């Protein structure tokens, strides 16, 4: 059989001291996957320290790891069977190094969960089992190791199997196989063991050759997150990696979350052998598009009808690796595909004890190694998918300070939240609040003027806005100057075309309104500079200051009016 070069990635996890590194070392040794130097070096170290030859040292390269006999950090190593090439990932089993176990396991497609036959199912066996389910790894073999310590007993094997099956089924993890082995003596590693004739299944080596690589993500809806936009020459190249689906020259595309539509003009290349008309999932590529408008990193290119979810709130399962607790309403950085946004946890739904699967009662913080279900709120709406439907756009990490401190998967999108804090406009890494869609009424019953919030959506570059309401009428082209946020928004043809900081804003002789929809009395660049200066010089000790500033600079009724209204329906 021809050897497949797909490099199936298998992570080996389990409780500390259950023999993960030994099983891997043995697999590498038995398959002749190691260079002489590596084996010689371990032999030399064994001699120097007077210890027996340890297969684990083949992976535990750090001095500290060898001296303490534990794996500290994850490592990856290629290895070959007759059938194909693998990348095997060794993950530490000590609770303290869970972050390293996750760093290794997050890259894997399949897993071997190693359990010591004598000790049975331990805390990290369970926690690692839970992590596999969170990371979406479904191809799991449970390896019952150190069978030599229980005299290769079939009864013990079945006992451990039953215990683990019981726990994993609660997580929806159904291991494909349970294999009894002795890593130290090489039983059921590469050869069928004659010490355990009662076991009819394959040894590890033959069993992993039966794993099928995951079917292509090329058939899923297109997800092409923008990584960067290059303008090295006369081409304006939108660069990134196709995370799902395929993309061809001539395709109609839509850019989320803004919703701008355009057509793929070309797929760019440098080397002649990379010239192509179609690119698909997994490829790093770059395209040019027909309509040149502002694009930025983080946006996701897709096709109309198969857009990701867009919201500033979603429900997620997360695991916490931070030394500092995760607390409600603290600001963190969320990274999802190439999007980066400030976020906070709005609600902790439950904290799950990963070893008992019990939900804890008191939930106001999430501590190191906890798993929890939470609701996140992001500063701006972002595009995402539910993890089960699309892995890459359905998972994210949380950065606390300088380090990644948590990871998670999206379980559900939540309704967009619009409170006083929610901006009306976002884009170009800016946000702006605005009440230009508020309606003003003169209530014919109470004889009072009432304002009803008209803010029911958020808009970004490319979005059409509502220019006509019951009490407002804006032109097709105008600029909004939001003083509170110091952001200018350009509306052209009824659509948002740009968000700019005041420092970069230039007057283009279009009508101006402020964030509440009142016309601004400015007709020139000089006027605009004057109003900015006036605003900066406002003395808030004067109680009349807002009224004075407003009367000087704003029209109430240029684009707004009062409508009669009878408030009796409620």
């Amino acid at each position: 059989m021809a050897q497949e070069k797909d490099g199936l990635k298998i992570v080996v996890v389990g409780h500390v001291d259950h023999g993960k590194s030994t099983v891997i070392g043995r697999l590498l040794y038995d398959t002749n996957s190691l260079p002489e130097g590596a084996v010689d070096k371990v032999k030399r170290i064994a001699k120097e320290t007077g210890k027996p030859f340890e297969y684990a040292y083949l992976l535990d390269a750090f001095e500290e790891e060898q001296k303490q006999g534990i794996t500290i950090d994850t490592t990856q190593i290629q290895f070959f069977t007759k059938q194909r090439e693998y990348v095997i990932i060794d993950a530490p089993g000590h609770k303290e190094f869970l972050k390293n176990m996750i760093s290794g396991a997050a890259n894997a497609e399949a897993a071997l969960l190693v359990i010591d036959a004598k000790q049975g199912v331990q805390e990290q066996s369970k926690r690692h089992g839970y992590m596999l389910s969170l990371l979406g790894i479904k191809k799991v073999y449970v390896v019952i190791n150190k069978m030599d310590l229980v005299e290769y007993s079939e009864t013990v094997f079945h006992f451990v199997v039953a215990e683990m099956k019981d726990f994993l089924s609660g997580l929806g993890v159904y291991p494909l196989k349970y294999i009894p082995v002795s890593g130290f003596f090489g039983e059921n590693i590469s050869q069928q063991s004659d010490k355990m004739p009662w076991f009819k299944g394959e040894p590890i080596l033959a069993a992993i050759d039966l794993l099928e690589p995951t079917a292509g993500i090329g058939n899923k809806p297109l997800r092409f997150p923008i990584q960067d936009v290059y303008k090295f020459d006369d081409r304006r190249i939108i660069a990134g990696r196709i995370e799902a689906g395929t993309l061809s020259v001539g395709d109609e595309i839509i850019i989320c979350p803004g919703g701008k539509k355009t057509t793929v003009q070309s797929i760019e290349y440098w080397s002649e052998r990379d010239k192509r008309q179609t690119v698909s999932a997994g490829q790093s590529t770059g395209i040019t598009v027909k309509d040149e408008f502002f694009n930025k990193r983080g946006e996701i290119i897709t096709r109309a009808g198969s857009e990701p979810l867009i919201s500033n709130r979603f429900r997620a399962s997360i695991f916490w690796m931070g030394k500092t607790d995760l607390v409600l309403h603290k600001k963190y950085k969320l990274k999802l595909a190439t999007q980066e946004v400030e976020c906070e946890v709005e609600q902790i739904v439950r904290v799950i004890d990963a070893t008992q699967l019990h939900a804890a009662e008191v939930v106001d913080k999430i501590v190191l190694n906890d798993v929890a279900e939470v609701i996140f709120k992001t500063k701006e709406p972002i595009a995402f998918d539910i993890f089960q439907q699309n892995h890459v756009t359905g998972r994210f990490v949380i950065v606390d300070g300088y380090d990644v401190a948590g990871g998670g998967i999206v379980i559900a999108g939540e309704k967009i939240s619009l409170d006083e804090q929610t901006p009306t406009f976002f884009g170009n890494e800016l946000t702006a609040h605005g009440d230009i869609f508020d309606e003003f009424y003169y209530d014919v019953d109470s004889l009072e003027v009432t304002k009803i919030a008209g803010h029911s959506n958020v808009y970004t570059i490319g979005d059409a806005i509502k220019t006509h309401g019951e009490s407002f009428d804006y032109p097709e082209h105008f600029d909004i100057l939001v003083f509170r946020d110091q952001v200018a928004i350009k509306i052209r043809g009824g659509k948002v075309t740009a968000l700019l900081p005041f420092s970069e804003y230039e007057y283009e002789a279009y009508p101006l309104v402020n964030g509440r929809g009142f016309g601004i009395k400015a007709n020139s660049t000089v006027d605009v500079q004057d109003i900015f200066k006036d605003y900066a010089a406002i003395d808030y000790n004067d109680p009349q200051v807002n009224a004075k500033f407003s009367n000087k600079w704003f029209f109430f009724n240029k684009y707004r009016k009062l409508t009669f209204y009878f408030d009796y329906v409620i």
Partner: protein
Amino acid sequence: MDHLDKLEAESIYILREAYKKLGKLGMLWSIGKDSTVLLWLAKKAFYGHCPFPFIHVDTKHKIPAMIAYRDRVAKELNLDLIVHTNQAAIDAGMGPDKGRLACCKALKTEGLQQVVQVYGFEGLIVGVRRDEEGSRSKERVFSERSKDYSWDYANQPPELWDQFKTDFPKGNHIRVHPLLAWSEVDIWEYIRRENVPIIDLYFAKNGKRYRSLGCEMCTGQIESEADTLDKIIEELKTTKTSERAGRKQDQEDSYAMQKLRKDGYM
């Protein structure tokens, strides 16, 4: 996508992340096969442009053919090349006779530190691979070095789902490792597939060739008849000798590389 396509796509993704997210960025170019593949990948990632300088830490003990090759290629490709030598150490007579690890530390580690300091690099792209040796097998793709250039290898932050470390205090820098997942054979198969121009020291002459390039006095040749790419690949698929067996500094101590790299060695 085949195996090499996957490796290429991932490396390009990493290079683009480094370019977008790190401030002042440079790429270490040792003239060897790995960093030459990196150069090729950068050309692909940035469509024929190389939007950062290349750095060669010249120990003045390199094989002379490497230096000639370096200068010729840099001129041909119009590379923005920074060549730096720890001149003070050279003037003080540093060489492998003063102890191999001391020599590596002075001429390579400290030489590199001087470059980082003089140019204020926040990101250094380095062509190390996991399969080269143990301490590299434990590396992250984006690996932080502190102000004193040290690597806190026993306490690395999590790295998952291609979300790399792009937040760090000013003064620290990030080593970016786009080739971490490649093996030695992958490198050669890619060179063959893409026709990547490569220095001829790797091809056998008179029954000997270099498998790994470094300083003249500390880099041994191997017995080999492999004078073509096909023969090199065939040789590597059957060999049981490790790639760096000819690199004398590695043999100085069981944990030589870990010790050197902890202090900022590449």
